[in-house]
């Protein structure tokens, strides 16, 4: 192996136009040495999943502030599985109540990071996840 870069898609689905959080996290991920594919605002789940597949990312990170998180996460997970890409890990952040976050985790979302989470937390999570899956030999 020459390089095994962690590749992440940072996507902003739905109709809210607030991408500051997404940009902050994209920059933090870059500074952590990850390759971040940033696709901008107003992404449909279909666009997100297609981009995730073309880019062969390890992780899709969704930033959702619109309140539509339950539908959007569910749709992204469903589409990924439908495209035989269920191994792509989905995480997210935004304004998401804890009870919803629990439901999302049960659905298969790896982790949810709320407002005010230091950026080191998702970075640490991703590194651990990546090390664990690579050890499991899934890659």
């Amino acid at each position, binding site marked *: 192996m020459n390089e095994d870069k962690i590749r992440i898609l940072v996507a902003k689905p739905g109709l809210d136009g607030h991408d500051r959080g997404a940009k902050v996290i994209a920059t933090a991920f*870059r500074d952590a040495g990850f390759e971040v594919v940033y*696709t*901008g605002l107003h992404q449909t789940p279909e666009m997100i999943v297609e981009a995730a597949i073309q880019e062969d990312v390890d992780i899709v990170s969704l930033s959702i502030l619109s309140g539509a998180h339950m539908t959007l996460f569910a749709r992204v997970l469903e589409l990924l599985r439908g495209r035989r890409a269920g191994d792509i890990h989905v995480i997210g952040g935004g304004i998401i109540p804890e009870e919803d976050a629990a439901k999302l985790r049960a659905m298969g979302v790896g982790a949810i990071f709320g407002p005010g989470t230091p950026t080191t937390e998702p970075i640490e999570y991703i590194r651990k996840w990546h090390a664990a899956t690579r050890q499991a030999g*899934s890659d």
Partner: protein
Amino acid sequence: MTSTVPQGIEDLAAGVRAGDRRALSRALSWIEDETHQGRALLDRLYSPSPTAHRVGITGPPGSGKSTLTCELTRAIRSHEGTVGVLAVDPTSPFTGGAILGDRIRMQALAQDPGVFIRSMATRGSLGGLATTTYGASEAMEAAGCDWILIETVGVGQSEMDVVEAVDTTIVVLVPESGDSVQAMKAGLLEAGDLFVINKFDREGGDRIEKEILLMIELERDRRASKNEWQPRIFRTIATRGEGIEALRGGIEEHRAFLWRDPESWSARQDLRVAQRLRTLLRDRILHALWASGRWDPWIAECGRRVREGAASPYALVDDLVARLMAGKGTEG
């Protein structure tokens, strides 16, 4: 895990050839990672007769390359053929990370099944960018892409190498590029088959057009005597799709020129293959020998001698290279 990406080289190669998008995507990762597997895969995918037309799109940051690439892809798609896009962005030399943001300007292509976009970070410190992008284009070609657009920031030698490996090179400038044209004269401008002055609605478009025209004129007789392509200039406003169809026509013309007769095509292929072998060999020597760390003891030992004043770095390196060329090792 629920991954169904083929794991073996033969299966992956078959998947790529069948046009399976996940297989192509994984193949591109292997190639990008410059692994042994990636090279073995390229060996399987290699075709002696290229079918795809490769277009390099380069120019200074902010000249609108991504938007232009997107619009050009749409124009090509409205005619015929499938398109692969390789969008190269720089890796941070400090963290090794990268933000690959070209897709932001390519939203219009997001759902087109005849388009495959891949973002690539420049990564390597050893200058293998041309090798990986060309390898990636070969995988896209094997997957059935008729057109491959490679978008890169046209600065630095490794990016110049990328440009040299394509069939048609488009240099994108903006009206404000006037001063940078002066600075670029020696390098990028010589590589351009087609020049685009994008954002032409801005002030200064005419001026930069004249500068490029002058530069083309200075070379016109020399090129004509050698029966070479005469570069052309196009005005575009990519955000409004203006001038794009003409540009697409220009690419077609350049392609027809390259194919004008069997002899010149064949001569061009000879050059390309030789260039490819040279680049691959250089990269592999660097990777296999340099990255392996086998020089480290020599560097430590010679470093000590240089510090002691026993020898100069020049003499030590000369001596080592002479022994290597004679087929001996680092010992003695």
